[in-house]
Each structure stands twice: as structure tokens, then as C-alpha cells.
């Protein structure tokens, strides 16, 4: 059950699908977080710089106001004193405005501190205010004392608060920085985990896929080997069948010849004797015996033709060339087609299988010519090239399409030729006749041609009577 659900397709799709989705999610998330981190970082930095700057400005304004107050209190000249007072006013206004802008960008923790600072600054001004109205004489008298006893301590404590604020800012910066580091670590861990998970998943997928592929490969190779073996067995079976068939034909042919021939010969002998025995009797008896002899003759001839059709005895008795010549002569007689048979010197002893195969090819080709080709002439060429034996049959008939309709006979020929390790080429096309070329390799022998040459040469010249 589980096997059916877990088809290869499902496993692969879900496995790789999950992997890819994880990858995408991880990527998107990381980019987002990194973006956040960067902008946070920028903000924090900008904020801090801002605050430090403002605080510095407040501080310097307070220092400046201190300087102005001192100048005012110690200045005898009324004009200069007025200038200082004015400057002090400006300074105060500036501090007020700085404080105002600042308060608008504060967190709650800061709020309290800044309130404290503000109050201090208010006190500071409150203490200063009466002194601002003093004239030159008062200033001369109490100026220094006022400065020393009232202003400076006030200023110090104000600045102290400012310092506190400064350190609070720094702490806040550190805190924020820590938070960023925390976010970053979080992201890093997330990445690590996700990568580990993806690696594992990828590994598992790879293992599963590889195992499956290897399994399939093994199966395929096994199937291939099986198929190859089956084909080989088929071929060997087919060759065996052919051999059996030819043997059968040879045997039947010979049996027909011998058995029928022998018994008919015996009959002829007897009839001959009978004819002699009937000599003194009226003529019509011997005439009838002669008639019987003729009937026997024609029966023998019929049987002989059947036997030759099955397998011509010439093939075994007189050789391949003679058999092909005989077959051609039969066809010439039947159809009037011109057939020419020519042959190079062939090895004397051709193995039976090869001889029969070449003969059957020629026979099939000639039959096809008669049945289909409407040819005027056929040329048959036998030769023995390259340690083998070859036959070429060319006709000038109608031709056919070898790719489309090869015919059972020719397919059988191809099987036979290939079974003996040879090649069969059929070259034909509508309107350009047919060329059949077959070649079979011969088993190696001690140079048969020279052997054959000697015998053929001497036998070719029948014994000439002495001149």
C-alpha cells in the first residue's frame, strides 16, 4: 500500500519541492532581516549622533552663557555690559529652543532626565535674572561673589545633568547595538538551522534518487542482456530450423529418387523380362507391356521433378555453379527471360550450409524475377572475394521498394545470411531493376583455390585422343 502511494514521481516532487520552498523562504527571510538590520543600524547611529550633537550644543550654550554672565558682571562699561546682557538673552533663547526640539524626540526614560535638566536650567536662569538688572556699581560690588557662589555651582550641576544625559545616551546606544547583535545572531542561527535541514533533506533526496537510478540501471542492463540473449537464441533457433529444413528436403529428395527410382528400376527390369518372355506371343501383348513401361517412365519423371523442386541434386552432385545454371535453364525454358551465369574460380569444397544458402538466394531471386519483375534479362555473377563467397544477381525489371515490401522470402534470406555471418544487400527502386548482393565468409582452410585450380585445369581438358 505504502509502495503505491510513494511513487517515484511523488517522492521526487515532494522532496525537491520542499527543498526548493525552504530555499526560497530562507532567502526571502534573510534578505528581509538583513534589510531591517541595516536600516535599524542606520537609524540608531543617526539618532545617537543627533543627540550627542544637541547635547553638545546645549552644553556649549551653557558654557557660553557662563562666559557672558561673567563678562557682564565684571564689565564696568555700561555699553559693553548691555551687549553682554543681550548676548546672554540670545543664549537663553537658544537653549530654550534646543530643549524644545529635543523633547519632541524622546523616549520615556529620557523624558525624566530632560525634565530634570530643564528644571535646573530654569533655576539657573531664575538665579541669574535679578543680577541682570544690576547697575555698574552693584555689579562691581557683588559681581564676583555672585559669580563664585551662585552661578558656578548652578552651572556645574546643570552640566552634571548634561553629562548624565550623555552617559544615558551612550548606554542606550550600547543597548540598541546589543539588540542588533542579538537580531543578527538570531538570523545566523536561523540560517544555520535552515541550511542544516536543507542539507539533510538534500542528502536524503540525493540518496533516494541515486538508489532509484542505480536500481533502474541494473534492471535495464539485466533486461538488455536478456533481450540480447533472447535474440541470439532466436537466431540460433532459426538457423537450426533452416538446417533441419534443408536436411529434410535433401533426405526427402534423395529418398524419392532412390526409393522410387529403385523400385521403378526393378519394375522396369521385370517388364523387360516380361517383354522378352512375351516375344513368341501376339504383338499386342508386347505393345501393352511397352505402354506400361512408358507409364512407369513418366511416373519416374514426375517424381524426379518433384524431388528436384525440393532440392536439386545438382547442388550436391555437381556443385553450386552447376545447380544455379540448371535452375536458370529451367526458368529460361519457362519464361524466355535471358539469364547469364558467370563464375570466378570457386573453392572446391564449399561447406554444405554456405552452398545451400547461396543457391537458395539465387533461387529466390530468380523466382521473384519471374513472378514480379517483368524483366528481360538477368545476370548472375559468382565470385570468391576476401576469404568468402559472393553472388550478385542483377535484373533489368520493374524494381520494388525494399523498405516497404521486402517479402517473406527475402527476409528469410537475410536471416540465413546473417546467421552465417555474412551480408545481404538489396538495391532496388521502382523502374530501375533489382540488384541483390550476398556475401558469406568461409571458414578458413588450407588455400583451397590452388587445390581446386589443379584439378579443374586437368579435368577441363577431357582426354584428347592422341594426335
Amino acid at each position, binding site marked *: 500500500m505504502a509502495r503505491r502511494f510513494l511513487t517515484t514521481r511523488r517522492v521526487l516532487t515532494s522532496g525537491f519541492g520542499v527543498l526548493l520552498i525552504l530555499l526560497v523562504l530562507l532567502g526571502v527571510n534573510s534578505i528581509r532581516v538583513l534589510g531591517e538590520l541595516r536600516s535599524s543600524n542606520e537609524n540608531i547611529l543617526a539618532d545617537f549622533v543627533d543627540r550627542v550633537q544637541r547635547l553638545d550644543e546645549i552644553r556649549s550654550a551653557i558654557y557660553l552663557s557662563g562666559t557672558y554672565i561673567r563678562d557682564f558682571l565684571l564689565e564696568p562699561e555700561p555699553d559693553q555690559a548691555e551687549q553682554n546682557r543681550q548676548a546672554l538673552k540670545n543664549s537663553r533663547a537658544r537653549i530654550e529652543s534646543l530643549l524644545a526640539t529635543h523633547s519632541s524626540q524622546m523616549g520615556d526614560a529620557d523624558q525624566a532626565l530632560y525634565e530634570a535638566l530643564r528644571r535646573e536650567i530654569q533655576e539657573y536662569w531664575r538665579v541669574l535674572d535679578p543680577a541682570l538688572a544690576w547697575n555698574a556699581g552693584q555689579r562691581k560690588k557683588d559681581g564676583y561673589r555672585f559669580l563664585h557662589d551662585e552661578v558656578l555651582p548652578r552651572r556645574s550641576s546643570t552640566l552634571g545633568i548634561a553629562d548624565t544625559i550623555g552617559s544615558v545616551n551612550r548606554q542606550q546606544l550600547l543597548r540598541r547595538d546589543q539588540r542588533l547583535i542579538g537580531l543578527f545572531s538570531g538570523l545566523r542561527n536561523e540560517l544555520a538551522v535552515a541550511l542544516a535541514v536543507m542539507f539533510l533533506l538534500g542528502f536524503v533526496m540525493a540518496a533516494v534518487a541515486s538508489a532509484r537510478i542505480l536500481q533502474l540501471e541494473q534492471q535495464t542492463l539485466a533486461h538488455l542482456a536478456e533481450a540480447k540473449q533472447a535474440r541470439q537464441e532466436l537466431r540460433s533457433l532459426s538457423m537450426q530450423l533452416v538446417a533441419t529444413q534443408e536436411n529434410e528436403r535433401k533426405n526427402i529428395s*534423395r529418398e524419392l*529418387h*532412390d526409393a522410387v*527410382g*529403385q523400385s*521403378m*528400376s*526393378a519394375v*522396369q*527390369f521385370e517388364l*523387360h523380362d516380361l517383354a522378352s518372355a512375351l516375344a513368341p506371343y501376339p504383338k499386342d501383348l508386347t505393345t501393352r507391356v511397352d505402354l506400361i513401361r512408358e507409364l512407369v*517412365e513418366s511416373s*519416374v519423371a514426375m517424381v*524426379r521433378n518433384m524431388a528436384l523442386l525440393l532440392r536439386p*541434386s*545438382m547442388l*550436391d*552432385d*555437381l556443385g553450386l555453379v*552447376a545447380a544455379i*545454371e*540448371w535452375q536458370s*535453364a529451367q526458368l529460361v525454358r519457362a519464361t*524466355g527471360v535471358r539469364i547469364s551465369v558467370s563464375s570466378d574460380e570457386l573453392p572446391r569444397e564449399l561447406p554444405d550450409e554456405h552452398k545451400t544458402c547461396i543457391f537458395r538466394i539465387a533461387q529466390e531471386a530468380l523466382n521473384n524475377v519471374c513472378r514480379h519483375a517483368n524483366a528481360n534479362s538477368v545476370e548472375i555473377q559468382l565470385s570468391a572475394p576476401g576469404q568468402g563467397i559472393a553472388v550478385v544477381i542483377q535484373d533489368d525489371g520493374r524494381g520494388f521498394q525494399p523498405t516497404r515490401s521486402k517479402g517473406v522470402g527475402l527476409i528469410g534470406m537475410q536471416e540465413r545470411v546473417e546467421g552465417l555471418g555474412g551480408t545481404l544487400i538489396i538495391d532496388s527502386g521502382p523502374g530501375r531493376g533489382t540488384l541483390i548482393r550476398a556475401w558469406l565468409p568461409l571458414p578458413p582452410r588450407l588455400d583451397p583455390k590452388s587445390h581446386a585450380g589443379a*584439378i579443374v585445369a*586437368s*579435368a*577441363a*581438358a*577431357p*582426354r*584428347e*585422343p*592422341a*594426335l
Partner: protein
Amino acid sequence: MLRMNSVAVRILIADDHSLIRNGLRNVLARQEGFEVIAEVCDGREAVEEAERRMPNVAILDIGMPALNGIEAARIISEKLHEVQIVILTVHTDECYLVNALKAGARGYVLKSAAESEIVQAVRAVSQGKAFFSPKVSRILADDYVRYLSSKNVEDTYDLLTGRERQILQLLAEGQANKDIANILNLSPTTVVSHRQHIFQKLNLHSLAELILYAIRKGVVASQRSGCAHGD
């Protein structure tokens, strides 16, 4: 003539069927002047026995195991020129006859008529003449006539002079040039020249072809009384 009267004709029979061998032996043994010296049943034995016993005439069946009659004839006629060969067979096809002649056989007898013809055949070849079953000649002649008429080819026989026809017949019967000269009262050179003409006119290339031609034309007298021409 000398041969016939004093020394018996020694005969070797080669056939793989005992019935045939027995029949032949009986027929030949009944003849005066014939002696069957050996019987074998395959081609290889035929060659060996012929080498060993040197018969005058060897009767060979074609369809024998080990080595067929044609091959045996080829070997015997090549090695042992004195042995005359008669082929005994059921085959009437021209290709068999041609191959038999090429292999050196002088006689060609059909098994169906063996009993009646074998004696004539043996006698003829032992005298250096040729013998062919009349039926074979008839078949071949019929074939040839049919062939000629179907092709509307002129009968080349008409090209020969009377003298040439005579010489053709004698050649086909196996007479040597010298003997022909004697028979026809010509000089040997004349005979040779006629012979060349015959070969040219009839487009023949070997004695075997000439014999075949003669058979086809029916000019080979195959049913002679068997007397030597010198009688």
C-alpha cells in the same frame, strides 16, 4: 580386335545400391569376354580399387557417399589414363552429361535401361569409343530442337560440309585423328584442318562440347552393333 578376342575386359562396378550392383554383375558376367573384378559402394573406394586393380572399364554411379561418381571419374581419368569410364545414373539433365564428359567419362548409361544397354556401353568404351543411352540423346536432341526453334536460330549443322560431318561423327565416337584419316582415306593433316574448321564453325571449345553437340544432333550412333570399325 586383338583386345576383344584374347584378353577379357576387366570391369569395376561402383554403386551404393546392392540391387543395382547385383543386376549389373549378373548381366556382365553372362557376357563372354567380360570379367567383373571388383564391386565397391562409394566413390573413395572406387578410386582406391581402380588404382589397385587397374580395370579396363569402371562403371560409376553418380550418387555415391564419400565421393560422388563425377568426382571419382575426374580423379580416375586424371591419374589412370588407361581406365575407361562409364557413368551410370538416373539423371537425364544436360548438366549431368556435360559434367560427366568433362570429368573424362566416355559412356553415359541411364539406370532405367541399364540391363539392356550396359553391355554395349562397356564394349564400346573398352574399344575407345563413346556410348550414350539413346534416351539421353533423344532428350537432348528434342531439347535442342525446341531451343533452336524458339530462338529462330539457324541450325549450325548446315554450315558443315559432308566431310566435316563425317569427321564430327567419328570424333564424337572417340576416334583419334590418325584413325579417322585411315577410315576416310585422308591425310592426317587434312583431318586436323577439318577438325579445326568444325570447332570454329560450330563455336565449340572442347571435345566435351563437341560430343554433346553430336549427341544433340543425334549423329552419334549409340546403338551400333558393337563391332570395331576395323572388322
